[in-house]
């Protein structure tokens, strides 16, 4: 792993226009002023509740939603793309380099195509392979990497369990040989027993093929075990970003701490000791003033209601967006 960023975003914003009629159009900022670097060869985690903008951020890096402000670049050493201003032909070649693995393996696979056709489709559409033999060869290679049998290739998706289907989705995403893969809640729909298997597979693929992963999840314990670096999102902003070990040993943002304490403990005698977060994430069309978290934060004061804190660090890679993090760390 090098420290050279594969993906970097500077003050990136994505907004959608919502409303009942064209006269009542409102702008919804799903991602608001995000600055981050995803190092080449890393397993980069993004966590947050529903509505925090984590999926939209992933889509922005894939150029699947229009970027409203700021910039984002892809640079793998041989080619470089500015994701905020791409021509149609650039986009076509970028699709080969950046791919997405979806959340729900039941909805992501066409029920009318065989597994072989599902994995072969991107190869044929992008014109990567020229002959049928070449395509078959490539499909068999990638299927073997994702631990699918040749026997499986002739069947239809309905014959497979959730874990096997997710392996098929992964094979399809990797068929065109991408450098950058966004895994959006890729284990959320799976049983814990299977989840561990898919996580181990993603990790080994990342190592063997030298891929860079952006792993989007709402499950902190899953992220803790797979990612090198974690960014925590709340209402379209990154509120804390740190190497996994630092984040889990000493979370600085009150939101991150609340997320930790909400994970149900396996110890039955640990009941009732957790710090509960009140209320729900505010609507992104009607955002609070100042620090966006102040409506749910137990430590909020006037400063928090008035001024939005900046993402700051103490010189290390650990960044946090909170007025009071130093005082809170001293208390703890």
């Amino acid at each position, binding site marked *: 792993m090098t420290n050279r960023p594969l993906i970097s975003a500077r003050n990136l914003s994505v907004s959608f226009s919502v409303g009942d009629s064209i006269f009542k159009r409102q702008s919804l900022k799903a991602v608001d002023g995000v600055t981050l670097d995803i190092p080449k060869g890393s397993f980069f985690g993004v966590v947050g509740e529903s509505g925090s903008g984590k999926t939209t951020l992933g889509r922005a890096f894939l150029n699947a939603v229009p970027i409203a402000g700021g910039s984002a670049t892809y640079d793998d050493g041989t080619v470089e793309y500015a994701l905020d201003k791409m021509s149609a032909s650039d986009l076509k070649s970028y699709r080969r380099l950046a791919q997405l693995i979806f959340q729900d393996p039941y909805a992501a696979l066409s029920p009318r195509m065989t597994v072989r056709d599902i994995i072969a489709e991107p190869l044929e559409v992008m014109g990567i392979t020229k002959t049928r033999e070449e395509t078959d060869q490539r499909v068999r290679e990638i299927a073997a990497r994702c631990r699918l049998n040749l026997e499986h290739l002739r069947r239809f998706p309905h014959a497979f369990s*959730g874990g096997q289907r997710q392996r098929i989705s992964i094979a399809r995403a990797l068929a065109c040989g991408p450098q950058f893969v966004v895994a959006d809640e890729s284990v959320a729909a799976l049983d*814990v027993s299977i989840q561990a298997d898919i996580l181990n597979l993603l990790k080994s693929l990342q190592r063997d093929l030298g891929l860079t992963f952006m792993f989007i999840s709402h499950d902190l*314990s899953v992220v803790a*075990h797979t990612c090198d670096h974690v960014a925590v999102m709340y209402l379209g902003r990154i509120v804390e970003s740190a190497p996994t070990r630092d984040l889990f040993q000493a979370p600085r943002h009150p939101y991150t701490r609340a997320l930790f304490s*909400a994970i149900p403990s396996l110890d039955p005698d640990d009941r009732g000791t957790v710090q509960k977060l009140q209320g729900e994430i505010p609507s992104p069309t009607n955002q609070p003033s100042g620090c966006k978290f102040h409506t749910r934060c137990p430590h909020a004061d006037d400063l928090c209601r008035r001024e939005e804190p900046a993402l700051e660090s103490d010189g290390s890679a650990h960044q946090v967006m909170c007025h009071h993090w130093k005082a809170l760390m001293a208390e703890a």
Partner: protein
Amino acid sequence: MSLLDVQNLTLEFKTDEGLVTAVDDVSFTLEKGEVMGLVGESGSGKSVTAKALMKLNAQNAAYGPDSRIDLQLGDGSTVDVMSLNRPKDLQVVRGGAVSMIFQEPMASFAPALPIGKQMVEQLLIHADLSKAAAKALSIEMLDRVGISDAATRFNQYAFEMSGGMRQRAMIAMALSTKPQLLIADEPTTALDVTIQAQVIDLMKELVTEFGMGIIFITHDLGVVAQTADKVAVMYLGRMVEQGPVRDVIRNPQHPYTRGLIDALPKLDDLDAPLVPVPGDIPSPLERPSGCVFHTRCSQSLGQMCQTSVPEWSHRNADHKCACHLVLDGAGQ
């Protein structure tokens, strides 16, 4: 006399491909005020077992001749659910003595009716109340589960609420008829961890207040540890382990229960490898002979596990396990 006494419950579905055994000789009891966690992977028969308590499974379900479900009603009398057949007779159970909360609150409310109307409708059927009294009770229940401004919410539609609020409304609706038994089928799986923690707290409070029995279906052992008094683990329609929550989580006896616990990512040791339960749950059409788990079991004894169905062996009076490896009284 227990609130619920299920003996030798067996359920098969007649399908085009043949008879599918979904529940195989399951027995358990539940007391008033007790919370039982029902754990297992998708396809293990958890939901089918729970629905059988109200005979709510599809038309092609055939119950075994020895199946017996004795349920205590609100007036203290006992009814054998298996003996009821007409929908009219079953109403004392469905929505009367037993209420159910489903996993996806968006799918379980009718989208075109205000939630208040749906709450009143079921109260008019199951409780001897006037329309005005039913409305007052519904608003009181909405308020009770922590929905602010309940009188306004009463007239709103399901799509106007957030996921957490919908699930609260679902709980309010299920409890308004004062059921003896509440079945909660993965009630927090679709929610964020912070909201999940709120809903779990709410359910614990309500058990103390209303004193009903709860069957809590989940695949998350952390949630079970935080909510349940006892645990039953299911695999391919069979119950493989049963016991008090502390015994099962701290001293799991069955290799499957141990596998489920080992597969959970733990936050206290980030370096611990994730250990999946090997393989996938077999198709119910190809149920393994002998111990149903032998095809995935790392400690299989070979011949014995492949041919003979293990009997229950007791670790102590309440904690039992169906595995050839575990000998009777091993814990004493």
